[in-house]
């Protein structure tokens, strides 16, 4: 396997960053849901 292919195969950072976006979305939604449940 060439060095270039090794480089292109490594998308660990992309994976973690994409997951982080998911976590942010869930956290914002859950926080607002908690406020919603508290009020309504």
């Amino acid at each position, binding site marked *: 396997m060439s060095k270039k292919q090794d480089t292109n195969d490594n998308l660990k950072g992309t994976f973690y960053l*994409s997951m982080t976006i998911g976590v942010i979305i869930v956290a914002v939604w859950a926080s607002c849901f908690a406020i*919603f449940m508290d009020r309504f």
Partner: protein
Amino acid sequence: MSEQPIEVNESFRSKLKKIDARDAKLSMAHLYVAFIALFLGGLAGLLQVLVRSGSFELPWGINYYQVLTVHGVLLGLILTTFFIFGFQTAAMSVAVGTLSSNQRRLGWIGFWVMTIGTAMAAVMVLLNEASVLYTFYAPLQAHWIFYAGLALVVVGSWIAALSEALRWMKWRKDHPKQTTPLLGFMVVCNNLMWFIATIGVATEVLFQLLPWSLGFVDRVDILLSRTLFWSFGHALVYFWLLPAYMIWYAIVPQIIGGRIFSDALARLSFIMFVLFSVPVGLHHQLTEPGVDGSWKFLQVVLTMMVVIPSLLTAFSLFATFELRGRELGGKGIFAWLKKLPWHDVRFFAPFIGMLVFIPGGAGGIVNASYQMNQLIHNTIWVTGHFHLTVATAVMLTFFGATYWLVPHLTGRTLTKEMNKLGIIQTILWALGMGIMSISMHVAGLMGAPRRSSFSDYGGAEIAKTWLSYQIAQAVGGTLLFIAIILFLYIFIKLCWATPKGHEEFPIALVSDHAQETPAILENFKLWIVILVALVLIAYTYPIYDIISNAPLGSKGYKLW
């Protein structure tokens, strides 16, 4: 793995690198109008936050809602539409090919129709005959010239879009069985979505608001007008966003020296945005009586579908950045981030825009969640939300693009000094918007309303808890206005003062590892059929129901 023929043909690319001077003139004409709107609309925004801080009163009897209308119309409708068509004209000319004389003539006709419409609407707002905010909800009734002006802006944009579509179709005819240039494809997607979306608002203006404001009819069906408006209003958000996505997908990779991660993924994302941007307007009307809950629920589900192309985009962009960062020697899970060109404003500004879009999008999911919408509906949270999405993610991307686009069009260069000022301008904008938008979000959760001048409500206890956030909004808004002045200074320098030379119009190549783009992604007949079907499914019955159970309607009101 094969690539797109247009993307790999370097000699062909080199011929397209420099925009034709006649197309550059057309593009620049749009940018001049856009940035005049930025100055005036930004000034109106500054006045608003100062008024809401409680320590400033508008002089000479100027009405707060007049200023709010100036801000919303000039920034939400005029700045964006003119910048987008200016950028798209240049993108089409460079990526697809120089416009023919007839196509350019159409472009100019579109520009002048939009400009005349803008002037008509602006005069009425300045005369205080149309303080109806940018959503121009009935039964607030503006002067008919305001509505006619906005209708001309829409018609002008259709003409400009037709000019761009004709150029793309000509390329396709000249290059049978080849995948069209990505940037051209994206422009066509955006214009298609815009055309379908604006049919609703054009119907509202032509058949409801104009006859009503002219006195031909006494009353207007409020619910129908709002439903037609929002069939356009949410797609408007994507009309702002998609050009930013064009820059993120097709331009930024070239700026950082990388490649587009996947041409097919980019096209798939755009097709999904086109399909799921229009049949979703009812999620702006979740508290609206008169529309059955099941139709609102259907449109909420369709709204949530845009999460898919949004996350595809995030993945694709991160992958582009990581591959480039590692190519430059970056190691570890995140250390490659350090290798990206943080000192280049052409990258820095749109990147900050991308980052801000993450909380902006997360907030949007809260807005569109059927029940939770009650938490934030008509609060200043919503204002904070779209100041993160359009006013930060989109605008920072447009600012970043301006820094290379304008010198490319004027035959000048982005100097180190201007680049540095651009970085400062970006930081000021992000800081100002961060302070203002976070304050808006928090105050909104505490119940502070939007579209309200000072909101002290006669000294009510709850209103006192919002005051510190309103002062913070004034601080943020002041920083933003300083950033606008700095941006305009850079714009003027790039137009007339920086050294002459050649500034690249950066269009990225596709990665060698990307798979071939499936032909179906360019089958617009199929996508148009699906789009029209989705719109019909989402809207036919609700509109039939609204019309068949229509109340008497409302007379017009001028509450300002």
